[in-house]
């Protein structure tokens, strides 16, 4: 075979290459965990064969929230104000339910200023993949503690965090979220299938990704430095994702693997590690999260999933096509309707 011909780049089911899912050059610090997540997002979108124009990227404010500029350059993006991406997501989804919403936020953006909107997004189960790039600090404002900073963690300035961290996964499970996962920017093998599964889930999918801030939170005494996370990372299972368009029949050793089937026919396979973990048990999830915090570990993997939970639009009982594309005839009632109303206000019957 001829050495001089450069190898054809791989193409996905819609004929795009991984490069087609890239965005502009990152302006984050070299080594930032967020850039690694960006890489996994690009790869996941490529492997799933997402149509870029059907994706809407959303974010709040922060280093993390800048990243939508660095992936899926052919998709529309809405970089909102700080902590308010959930309300934007809700509006975008209602206007066009055909879009796949990909939201990126930070721990400050979500757990501090955005906590209220985050909880209500989850409660409404608006279909959006909500990625939290969690580094325990406010990166863009130079390293103050965020509300996910661990108790006793030491800041770059030497200050010690006295407050208990808010565990966004636990909150999500508590609020009945149908898809809750935690991962680590440094573990693309785990993160990628989780992202693909989240993108295939119909409902709010919360993906909390530990993403070390190399500039302000990677010193000695930080519990979220790359080293610390790597050391305390405790995966629940080995995850693989089988998209609906690949009807591979994988056969596993019995009892070794759990399979979760998503509404679009995709499958998530979870290979048991030391202990067997049932991601369908909300209480198991909460206890596991609680214990792992006590032990100073970060459990990662698919914490909880319930593919049957009705999504927001089902409740709103909207027409099937996007509201945004309805023509005037369908949204302006006929003159007879106005006449009827006017008659009512004439007679007082209305």
């Amino acid at each position: 075979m001829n050495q001089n011909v450069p190898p054809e780049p791989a193409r996905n089911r819609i004929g795009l290459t991984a490069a087609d899912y890239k965005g502009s050059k990152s302006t984050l610090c070299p080594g930032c965990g967020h850039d690694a997540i960006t890489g996994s997002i690009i790869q996941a979108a490529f492997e799933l064969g997402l149509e870029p124009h059907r994706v809407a990227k959303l974010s709040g404010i922060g280093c993390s929230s800048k990243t939508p500029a660095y992936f899926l350059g052919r998709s529309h993006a809405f970089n909102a104000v700080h902590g308010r991406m959930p309300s934007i997501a809700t509006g975008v989804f209602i206007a066009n339910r055909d879009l796949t919403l990909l939201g990126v936020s930070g721990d400050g953006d979500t757990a501090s200023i955005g906590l209220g909107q985050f909880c209500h997004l989850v409660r409404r189960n608006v279909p959006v993949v909500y990625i939290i790039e969690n580094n325990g600090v406010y990166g863009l404002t130079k390293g103050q503690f965020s509300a996910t900073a661990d108790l006793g963690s030491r800041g770059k300035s030497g200050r010690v965090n006295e407050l208990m961290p808010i565990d966004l996964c636990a909150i999500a499970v508590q609020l009945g979220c149908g898809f809750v996962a935690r991962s680590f920017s440094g573990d693309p093998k785990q993160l990628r299938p989780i992202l693909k599964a989240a993108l295939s889930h119909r409902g709010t999918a919360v993906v909390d990704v530990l993403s070390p801030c190399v500039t302000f939170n990677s010193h000695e005494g930080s519990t979220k430095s790359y080293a610390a996370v790597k050391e305390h990372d405790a995966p629940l299972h080995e995850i693989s994702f089988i998209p609906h368009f690949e009807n591979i029949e994988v056969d596993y050793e019995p009892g070794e693997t759990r399979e979760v089937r998503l509404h679009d026919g995709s499958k998530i396979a979870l290979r048991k590690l030391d202990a067997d973990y049932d991601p369908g048990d909300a209480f198991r999830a909460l206890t596991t999260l609680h214990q792992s915090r006590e032990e100073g570990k970060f459990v990662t993997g698919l914490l909880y999933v319930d593919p049957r939970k009705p999504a927001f639009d089902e409740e709103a009982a909207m027409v099937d096509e996007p509201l945004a594309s309805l023509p005037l005839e369908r949204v302006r009632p006929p003159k007879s309707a106005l006449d009827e109303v006017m008659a009512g206000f004439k007679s007082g019957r209305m």
Partner: protein
Amino acid sequence: MTHPVNDFNLHVATVNGSGSQTANNTLLRAMFQMGVPVSGKNLFPSNIAGLPTWFTIRVNERGWVARQRRNDLLVAMNPETSVQDIAAMGPGSVILMAEGVPAPKVVDGATSYVVPFQKLIEPIVADAKLRKLVVNMIYVGAVARILGIERAEVERALESQLGRKPKALAMNRAAVDAGFEYAETNMKPAPFRVERRNLTGGKILIDGNQAAALGAVFAGVTFAAWYPITPSSSLAEALQGFLDRYRRDPATKKATYAIVQAEDEISAIGMVLGASWAGARAMTATSGPGLSLMTEFTGYGYYAEIPAVVWDIQRIGPSTGLPTRTSQGDLLSVAFLSHGDTKHVMLFPASVEDCYEFGLEAFDLADRLQTPVFVMSDLDLGMNVWMADPFRYPEKPWDRGKVLTAADLEKLGRFERYRDVDGDAIPYRTLPGTPHPAAAYFTRGSGHDEAARYTESSEAYPRVMDRLNRKWETARSLVPKPVVDDVKGADAAIVSYGSSWYAVEEARDLLRGDAIETSALLVKSYPFPEEVGRFLARHERIYVVEQNRDGQMASLLRMEYPERATRIRPVLHYDGLPLDAQTVVDGVRSGEREEVAAR
């Protein structure tokens, strides 16, 4: 100045939650059906039940509907307020007081009756709880009798309201009759009365919030997000009602809209911006505190250029203030809502017709200008009932503004979100989901250039800001024009906006009687169309009438027209009650007197 026929004010004092609404509407409608112009104002507390409430019906043959200070007929049902209520009645007035309510001495020349409401209702309604509601119908009958309201019209009015509930109807009818008979034997006809006319033919009675909701329905609104707050809640609730009824897909019965009750106003405006950005016709409605919470996001809407329709149903006061009292106090805060060089478009509906028209037009403007548009209504306009001609069905299609489809992009080849292509400073936009590789762009509240790229450039930033200023000039030419009434040889001019207009028109009539001729300008929008500047240029003394303490419209005019600044004289009213003509007359007259004296 009272005329014996079709010119008086009927004032009913009760407590809220006592169901007097139906009774008052029955009286209002009965006279309306007799062809006599009426208007009704409900003065209610910020509470659910048990506190004083007043309903005032103005009957005026010449069609004046603004509030008046004087009342001619009082029904005093509320022991808590009867003393003050009765004390406020002057000579020539008629007072019906419920048996047992405390009462001061009635002024000479006033007629008063003590009516045994309870005794009269007991035989009619057995259930005590029910009785508390139906008792009000007794005064309906009595008042009808002494005012000469036709019994048949009372019947019809009652029927149109309770028609769907036969049992209730019968019971209420009986109560009306009892009141009527009681009055027949125990009371004299009042010195003022109602006489059939033909002045309300074909007209409707509606409140501004319902009118606004209707406008939105026919504008093709597809999304509304809101958070409950008085006095805007009834707009969202009316919208929900109309949409549920008229906007379900005939085939599937599914909704061609969505309404979300958000967790707060920050979220409501966020949802609206998200939905508009994605192509929906989106709106919200709020009041004071909710408006303040929308501050940050509206700045985003201005800078990122996203359409949005925001109804501000103004109530009085900084902070929580008086949630059930009216005002026009949000102009300055809305004009400059959010930090930085931010300016917002405002519309000022002056009538329920305007509420409907702007309910439609605000969407076209927002889509055309790609910016949030604020419609500045108020509690008086939004929650009180007004007479109007039936609303016109929109003949023109909607204007969704400059949105490029995949086909357009194919033709154009390239697309830059923030480039002024047409010279009107309004750029083109694309919607997410547009199947074309050139469609995508990045929306942000941070610095951006013509191609929507992130920038901190000291050239690009002012370039975009200057275009936004030019867009502001384009807005000036697109927003609703003011109503100008130039009177030859007028002594002075009166500028007003919103619900103040009714009182101003009546005041001009009174001033004329006083030999003071005035020209008038009714401002309907900000930025001000050039007609406003020309009007100011034509008049020497300009009284700006508004319902706030700080002369907010006057301030905007002085900022915009420095060369006219000294001509502007604020006439202010800010006690939370709707503006009355006398306040305007007094303000203008005293100003004109000084003027004459100065000569």
